């Protein structure tokens, strides 16, 4: 019963994500055949990217770029690894911890199953979701591969899809463990996200070409990279992936069986003396309840910025004299050297800061869907006051995020004597705030008009924007499409100075969207789940 219920939810989500994965693979393969038509162009691309440390650190290694298969793997792997990991940890923490917190597992466990058994069954159901992603991705890749221009065989397509789904599978297992350790879904997702962040950072250092390539075996993302589908497959890398998944799954089931329903493995202080400092109203409450999540994001942003700063000198030096700078120019970072590398790196930091913004909106929606918002608005609290307070807290969190990005990237560059000034990098950090404020406004608008679709809309906009930026950086993409990315109008500081006028316009649009969202919210019914 548990497996069936979980599978139903996971498969539904798996169909959508399998389609996204497949569509990304298909578009990458097709864009390569249409943009790089001749072998000469393809060889030039391979020469530009092939051994470039900057590219390798940011996007992963780029072997065999002179082939459709090699380019497709390069374009899709890292993005789908991260998206897949996020799917895995959010799905597992939702179907395990969140369901338990909502009390729905009380009903299920009154039947003929144990806590450990139920967790195992849930894992089985989630595996069905991962299988769905694999099946849909493999099908789309195989169909695209039938084209004589793309030419990817069925077997390689299946193996490629397996490589892409490896990260979601591993992070389903990670989320299963963190759901046992943590007392709430939010905590569980934060712990799992921290694992993802560290994995990514370790992979980045390993691929940066500064002599730590052995670290690739210390990162689950690195294992997936080592599978090298479509180019020179190394299926032995499936061993650590399968091993980690099996071990984490067994640990998760074991921990589920040993703890109380509703409890957590890590000690959770069930009582304490009151700390009422921030509990003066809705804004203070938002600061108090979101503090752990926001601090986790600041830590992730800080670590990423620090590592980016540490590798900037070496990676940026590799751009000098190469044609990679043309690609970087397409991404808005002209020139060579560490500044250009940092300019592109700050795009990734901008994405992280935008995720902070999206999280603030979804947290607000969770207050409404859970019924907790009603505790406030049945008291002398207007909806405008509640929403306005939360948005101001969100903006403050975004400003700090930008400052953290700037400061820690400077710490990294200063440690390597890169020579980039503190004010330049803090300016670059503040530069990434404006797309996040735009996202915040779009989220507030969605919350006002269609609250049950807030997550889909927000993460859809973010995913689309990132996809457009990455494809635009490699191929020729119409400016109409590029303009739909929230990151496209952000300059790639510190490669170029921030354009505060454009930033102002983005923020103004975000504010207008937020006002429209507030108006819609003040006029609609409160809606539960």
């Amino acid at each position, binding site marked *: 019963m548990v497996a069936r219920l979980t599978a139903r939810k996971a498969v539904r989500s798996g169909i959508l994500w399998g389609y996204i994965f497949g569509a990304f693979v298909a578009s990458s393969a097709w864009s390569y055949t249409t943009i790089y038509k001749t072998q000469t162009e393809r060889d030039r691309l391979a020469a530009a990217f092939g051994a470039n440390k900057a590219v390798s650190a940011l996007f992963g290694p780029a072997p065999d770029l002179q082939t459709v298969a090699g380019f497709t793997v390069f374009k899709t792997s890292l993005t789908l690894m991260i998206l897949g990991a996020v799917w895995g940890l959010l799905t597992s923490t939702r179907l395990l911890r969140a369901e338990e917190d909502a009390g729905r597992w009380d009903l299920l466990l009154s039947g003929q199953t144990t806590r450990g058994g139920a967790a195992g069954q849930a894992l089985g159901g989630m595996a069905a979701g991962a299988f769905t992603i694999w099946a849909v991705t493999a099908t789309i890749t195989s169909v695209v591969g039938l084209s004589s221009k793309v030419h990817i065989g069925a077997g390689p397509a299946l193996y490629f899809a397996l490589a892409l789904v490896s990260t979601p599978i591993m992070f389903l297992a990670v989320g299963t463990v963190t759901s046992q350790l943590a007392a709430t879904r939010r905590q569980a997702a934060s712990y799992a996200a921290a694992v993802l962040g560290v994995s990514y950072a370790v992979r980045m250092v390993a691929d940066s070409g500064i002599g730590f390539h052995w670290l690739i075996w210390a990162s689950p993302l690195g294992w997936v990279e080592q599978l090298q589908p479509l180019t020179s497959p190394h299926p032995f890398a499936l061993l650590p992936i399968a091993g980690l998944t099996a071990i984490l799954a067994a640990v998760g089931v074991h921990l589920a069986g040993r703890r109380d329903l509703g409890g957590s493995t890590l000690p*959770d202080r*069930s009582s304490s003396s*009151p700390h009422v400092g921030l509990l003066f*109203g809705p804004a203070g*409450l938002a600061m108090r309840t979101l503090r752990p999540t926001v601090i986790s994001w600041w830590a992730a942003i800080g670590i990423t910025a620090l590592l980016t700063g540490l590798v900037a000198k070496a990676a940026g030096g590799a751009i000098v004299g190469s044609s990679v700078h043309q690609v970087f120019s397409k991404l808005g970072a002209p020139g060579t050297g560490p500044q250009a590398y940092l300019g592109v790196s700050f795009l990734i930091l901008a994405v992280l800061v935008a995720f902070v913004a999206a999280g603030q909106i979804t947290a607000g929606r969770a207050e409404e869907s859970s019924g907790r918002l009603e505790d406030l608005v*049945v*008291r002398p609290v207007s909806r405008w006051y509640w929403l306005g307070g939360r948005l101001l807290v969100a903006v403050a969190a975004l400003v700090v995020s930008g400052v953290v990005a700037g400061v820690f990237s400077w710490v990294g560059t200063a440690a390597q004597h890169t020579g980039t000034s503190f004010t330049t990098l803090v300016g670059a950090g503040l530069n990434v705030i404006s797309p996040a404020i735009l996202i915040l406004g779009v989220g507030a608008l969605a919350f006002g008009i269609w609250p049950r679709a807030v997550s889909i809309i927000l993460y859809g906009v973010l995913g689309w924007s990132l996809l457009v930026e990455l494809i635009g950086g490699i191929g020729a993409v119409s400016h109409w499409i590029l303009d739909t990315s929230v990151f496209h109008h952000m300059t790639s500081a510190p490669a170029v100075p921030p354009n505060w006028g454009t930033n102002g316009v983005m923020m103004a649009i975000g504010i207008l969207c937020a006002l429209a969202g507030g108006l819609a919210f003040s006029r609609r019914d409160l809606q539960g789940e």
Partner: protein
Amino acid sequence: MGAKAIRTEGLTKRYGDTPALDHLDLEVVEGEVVGYLGPNGAGKTTTIRLLLGLIRPTEGRGEIFGLDCQRRSVEAHKRLAFVAGEAALWPSLTGAETLHLLGSVHGRVDEGYRDELIDRFDLDPSKRVRAYSRGNRQKVILIAALMTRADLLVLDEPTSGLDPLMEQTFRHCVYEARERGQTVFLSSHIMSEVEAVCDRVGILRQGKLVEMGTLAEMRHLSALTVEATFDRSVPDLSHVPGVSSVQADGRVVRCQVQGSVQPLLQVLANAGVTQLLSREPSLEELFIALYGGEAGDGTGDDEGHGLAG
């Protein structure tokens, strides 16, 4: 006539073609305790959510102390406190922190009374909400509402999850609130609770208010329950004017009497009755009698006037 704590005029809420509440005209005078009854899905919670501004009416309007529920909700909420049937609280906060937050947001707290309530409801305020049982979470929102000494208490199944001792504590709090002149609007399934504390009762059915009156008025409109024990075989009472629902069990017969009991007493006097018991219908019997006609047991018509003479 006293000032109106609650007043609705044609208050209606439709979801698509389905009327959840259908042209409700309701008045609650300041200082009275009104019960609001109805089966699941009758529209009780919809009424309360409209009054609180949580949802928007399709038609009509409502007022709290003369303030429009939708347009002047913030001002209206300064004078009321609400208890929901299911507590939705912040899991990471303790009971004390939750009470502090809700008190700060309301802007009005009688701290001494709050501490007294914590004691009376036997709540450990140092525990985090996620460690509370369902009943203890309900206590938190009860205390959060009562501690404000609000002019109007809007209670939607407030004792949900409470044990009988705590239910009794809650009733005493309502008595005290009434003594202080507070108005109480109580929606509940627990008939004994409504019967014990309410001055007037309204009964909702499929979104319409079908009955509104004091318990005495409602009992007058309903049937008396009579139980008679005989020293011989029971007589046939089915043709006695005003008598219905006759049930014989050995030498005991039970029946309902509407209107005058004189015809029945004349028959019983000559039939060897050894014991005669009569009682007014409980609120539960009134309620069941009102809705019993829908099930086809012939106790009421389509308008639900099974209670009417």
